[in-house]
């Protein structure tokens, strides 16, 4: 792997925006760039433009808490996220870019009978579908993670069990974005930053291209990978979606000596805590309860979440907060993504990634690229079609979101 020091290559001057591309992808986050990369790498479609209104990775791809896991709780989601997890495992080699992936083991705590049962079910269902997850009693949890206070600060919500997902990993999220961007560019894909899509051309039920602040573009296919802003993008094509955008916040402490080698999630405290390779303790929690596009952080979140973290990890009481930030999550009613067509020929959706999008990136890239290239919906994403809401086939997976 030679790519760790190759970041400057991304800053090469952008070619002028042409008037036609085979495929235009709206959104230069990890999802959009991955779709572009797999279109080029697996299908030989290199006449691709990724249109990003800000800088690449400026949305959720650069704001998430970098956790990779496949311990979902519906057969459809387990299949999909296992595929993503397996692709992530070899991604450093494939992209020739060091993504600093690190397997930590992920512990998902339960604090009452109901959530204990959910974690047991999670373990059984994962084992059935070939994902490595086991159920642990509290003393086994303590052995795996001695830093944890099993009484949880005497809050009356002690740890009564947990599911343990040994492959659970963290990865450098910005590197995933840069790695895909660099690899896609090497294959001929154009990435246009600072370019805003202002319109989507739909005539007679067919999408022919987009308008941008740098002029119109004709396209054989248009893919929306627009993240939290997707409702605004869909409106340009005359579509409404079952999506609401909520803020999700996170914070890191100042770097600390190696203190926490696991990733620890909690069903009742709604927190997920890990230590980054720089030593920062990274914590996130639930989405803000109201929909908003604001990315300003709140003190209320910081105070609440810090308190909940200290209940679980008393050593965190002495740490200083370094910074906090907010991303925008496009939440679906059933906590599963929306992938595929939207009733307009040549227009594809890759959205509904809520708080679970980062860990899905390679699988979403592979499957959407296959859909665009071949016109066939890959088996993995058939259940995630937008039409599932009309067909009464929602994939309810709230207990796997980690943020509720």
């Amino acid at each position, binding site marked *: 792997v030679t790519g760790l020091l190759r970041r400057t290559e991304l800053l090469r001057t952008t070619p002028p925006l042409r008037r036609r591309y085979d495929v235009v992808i709206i959104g230069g986050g990890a999802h959009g760039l991955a779709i572009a990369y797999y279109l080029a790498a697996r299908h030989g479609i290199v006449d691709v433009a990724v249109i990003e209104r800000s800088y690449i990775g400026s949305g959720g791809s650069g704001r998430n808490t970098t956790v990779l896991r496949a311990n979902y709780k519906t057969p459809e989601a387990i299949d999909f996220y296992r595929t993503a997890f397996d692709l992530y495992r070899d991604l450093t080699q494939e992209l020739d870019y060091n993504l600093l992936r690190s397997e930590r083991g992920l512990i998902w705590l339960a604090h009452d009978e109901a959530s204990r049962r959910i974690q047991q079910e999670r373990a059984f269902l994962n084992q059935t579908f070939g994902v490595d997850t086991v159920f642990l009693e509290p003393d086994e949890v303590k052995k795996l993670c001695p830093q944890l206070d099993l009484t949880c600060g005497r809050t009356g919500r002690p740890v009564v069990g947990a599911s343990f997902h040994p492959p659970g990993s963290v990865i450098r999220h910005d590197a995933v974005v840069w790695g895909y961007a660099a690899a896609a560019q090497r294959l001929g894909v154009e990435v246009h930053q600072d370019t805003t899509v202002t319109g989507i051309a739909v005539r007679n039920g067919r999408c022919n291209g987009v308008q941008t602040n740098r002029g119109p573009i004709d396209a054989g296919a248009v893919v929306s990978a627009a993240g939290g*802003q997707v*409702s*605004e993008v869909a409106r340009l094509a005359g579509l*409404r*979606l*079952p*999506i*609401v*955008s909520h803020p999700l916040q996170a914070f890191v402490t100042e770097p600390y000596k190696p203190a926490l080698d696991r990733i620890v999630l909690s069903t009742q405290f709604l927190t997920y805590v890990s230590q980054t390779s720089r030593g920062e303790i990274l914590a996130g929690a639930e989405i803000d*309860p*109201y*929909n*908003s*596009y*604001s990315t*300003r*952080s*709140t*003190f*209320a979140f910081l105070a609440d979440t810090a308190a909940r973290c200290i209940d679980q990890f008393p050593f965190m009481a002495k740490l200083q907060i370094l910074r906090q930030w907010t991303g925008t999550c496009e939440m679906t*009613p059933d906590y599963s993504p929306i992938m595929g067509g939207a009733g307009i020929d040549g227009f594809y959706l890759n959205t509904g990634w809520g708080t679970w999008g980062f860990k899905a990136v390679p699988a979403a890239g592979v499957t959407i690229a296959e859909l665009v290239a071949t016109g066939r919906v890959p088996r993995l994403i058939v259940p995630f079609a937008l039409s599932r*809401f*009309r067909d009464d086939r929602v994939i309810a997976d709230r207990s796997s979101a980690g943020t509720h």
Partner: protein
Amino acid sequence: MGFLLRCPNCGRRDNREFWFGGEDRSAPKNPEEESADSNFERVWFRDNQRGLQVERWFHFAGCRRWHTVERDTHSNVVRQAGLVREPGGDEGIEGREGRCER
């Protein structure tokens, strides 16, 4: 960003005193006659506006009434707040007469 809501009964309060009820979705006057398509759209789809949004909040830590609020979802600036009529009245829960008290 955190923000205050102006409750017509209780005054300006932190938004965490309220439950968020989502964007306002008008129910049809005659639900019995609603088409399947319209019902499907109303149940599942949202405008998710970036900008002014009419929405519902329930003041659980105060007067325990539903309120209609107009908020800019980009800046979180609250423009208007008003009561929603109690269900069962002539206007039903969708009644708007109580709205727009500044």
